[in-house]
């Protein structure tokens, strides 16, 4: 019998890698190779007759001229304004996300009581509504004769032109767009806090404010960081929000610059270089996030 069992074990030992193989190959071919392709295009030294870069697949052929030009132009030059704008917009949109998202997540996770299921369903709902649809909805409202201006008219404020390169509109649209993605991880982490700890804190004489600062906030720190990272990453690479609610070069972000070079012109090596640069900037956040989730998974086991 031990022999048969041994044979089984060897069979299953080979089975699991075999099952994992197709998906792994898929991700190598369509995730890792494409990432390499970005580098091959960004570091390309030759152009073809259409003026498009010929990718340098061999690392020995890599030319860094374009990438270094993009780098120096980003630090101080034509791309500088775009990078600063991206950082500023992302920062303010995140401030709004924290300011609105934390109270909402806190209330729905800890205090909602009987209505918890309903509130959670309503908070999850935007997650399943197409992002472009949600932006389209605001374009309806923000038109010159739209409901927002009509509402402002009732209060006696003159109508405003919202959709022509207005930074405020872009920041609000980003916050509106990504708040659902911000709230849910925070909700999950606030939900996991043991209520007895909060009661203990109160029994020891701390008021609501100090209980929040010394117990709830530290315990939800991981959830808050997760929420910030997973909203900051797509926000920093966003271009469609901007195009829909502004469409003006005055509010253009890094994502718009990438889309412009890659899809609307031959200078794909410039586009690829900006993608690389953006990835390097965001890589830090991505790795930090992966590190945190791995550690949390280990703690949970």
């Amino acid at each position, binding site marked *: 019998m031990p022999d048969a069992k041994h044979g089984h074990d060897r069979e299953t030992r080979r089975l699991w890698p075999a099952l994992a193989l197709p998906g792994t190959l898929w991700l190598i071919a369509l*995730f890792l*190779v*494409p990432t390499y392709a970005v580098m091959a295009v960004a570091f390309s030294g030759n152009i073809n007759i259409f003026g498009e870069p010929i990718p340098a697949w061999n690392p020995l052929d890599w030319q860094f001229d374009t990438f270094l030009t993009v780098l120096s132009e980003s630090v101080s030059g034509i791309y500088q304004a775009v990078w600063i704008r991206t950082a500023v917009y992302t920062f303010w949109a995140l401030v709004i996300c924290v300011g609105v998202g934390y109270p909402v997540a806190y209330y729905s996770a800890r*205090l909602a009581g009987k209505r918890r299921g309903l509130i959670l369903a309503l908070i*999850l709902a935007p997650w399943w509504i197409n992002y472009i649809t949600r932006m389209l909805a605001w374009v309806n409202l923000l038109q010159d004769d739209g409901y927002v201006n009509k509402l402002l008219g009732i209060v006696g404020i003159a109508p405003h032109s919202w959709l022509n390169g207005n930074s405020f509109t872009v920041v609000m649209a980003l916050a509106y767009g990504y708040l659902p993605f911000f709230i849910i991880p925070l909700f999950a982490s606030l939900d996991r806090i043991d209520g007895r700890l*909060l009661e203990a804190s109160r029994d020891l004489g701390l008021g609501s404010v100090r209980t929040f600062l010394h117990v709830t906030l530290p315990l939800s720190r991981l959830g808050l960081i997760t929420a910030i990272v997973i909203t900051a990453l797509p926000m920093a690479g966003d271009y469609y929000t901007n195009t829909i609610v502004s469409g003006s070069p005055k509010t253009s972000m890094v994502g718009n610059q990438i889309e412009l070079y890659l*899809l609307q012109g031959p200078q794909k090596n410039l586009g690829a270089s900006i993608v690389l640069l953006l990835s390097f900037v*965001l890589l830090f956040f991505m790795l930090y996030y992966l590190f945190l989730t791995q550690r949390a998974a280990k703690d949970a086991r």
Partner: protein
Amino acid sequence: MTAVETPRAQAAPGTTASRKWVPPWRNPWRRPYVLATVTWLYILWSLLPVLIAVQFSFNDGRSRSTWQGFSLQWYCCNEGSVFQDPSLLLSLKNSLILGLATVLVATPLGVMLAMGLTRWRSRTSKVANGIALIPLVTPEIVVGSALYLVMVNLYQFVPLGRPAMLLGHVTFSISYVLVIVRSRLLSIGGEYEEAGRDLGASSLQAIRTILVPLLMPSIFASAMIVFASSLDDFVVSQFLYGDAANITVPIKLYSAVRAAPTPALNALATLLLVGSLLALFLAYVGLRARKRGPGSALDDLADYG
């Protein structure tokens, strides 16, 4: 749950009677009116614009900002309505075909990957699992532009359009399936298959007759989530769609929104919304089959987000 919402408000034990007056911010058992208001205002803010957009899809006129009465003219039978405008109808058809195809390819691949990586305990599987999670945290614009550059420059046998979009959608969907199915696999443990094998089933039989039925709710839920996220995807599609014959609904909405749109665009968005909500509802029912009790399936969906 904490004691906050229980009606112990005034009956805080002992010392309360001897205390004179407690300002509301010192009373931990007061009702959280401010937070409740903020939450409901947020919900209103997040959903009302969409509801208004849906409302205008039924507008009896060309305006998307002035209500002119109820009509179905932008859905059917009027010139320029969803079912008369070939490009709107085409985008809807393309979105549905692409979503379905993505489900059919990504779900089996993802389920197999999840089984393999979870049960195969080795260093390689840990590395592979890490790699499989990276697409989840990579900004869409990076995924989209990388896929675009590789299709144009290396995989030239894959034409831009539906084939390229399918490859792209499957790539980001595999990770969703992996996360959902893997969490279920970890929670049910390996004992059931082992028992099956000890009773004489081959490994494949054990997977087919024991593991797959146990995983069915999560497989179904992940299929629905893949469908919804494929319908929802804009960035990857925009980089890979090639020409106007392959536009999906989000691309159509995006390109039409700045160019004198009519309520037909709202009608198209509404139809997409109905499609996603239907998939979500089915996923919810699927998840619910695994745990009894209200709320738990919603909590699961929240966790998967």
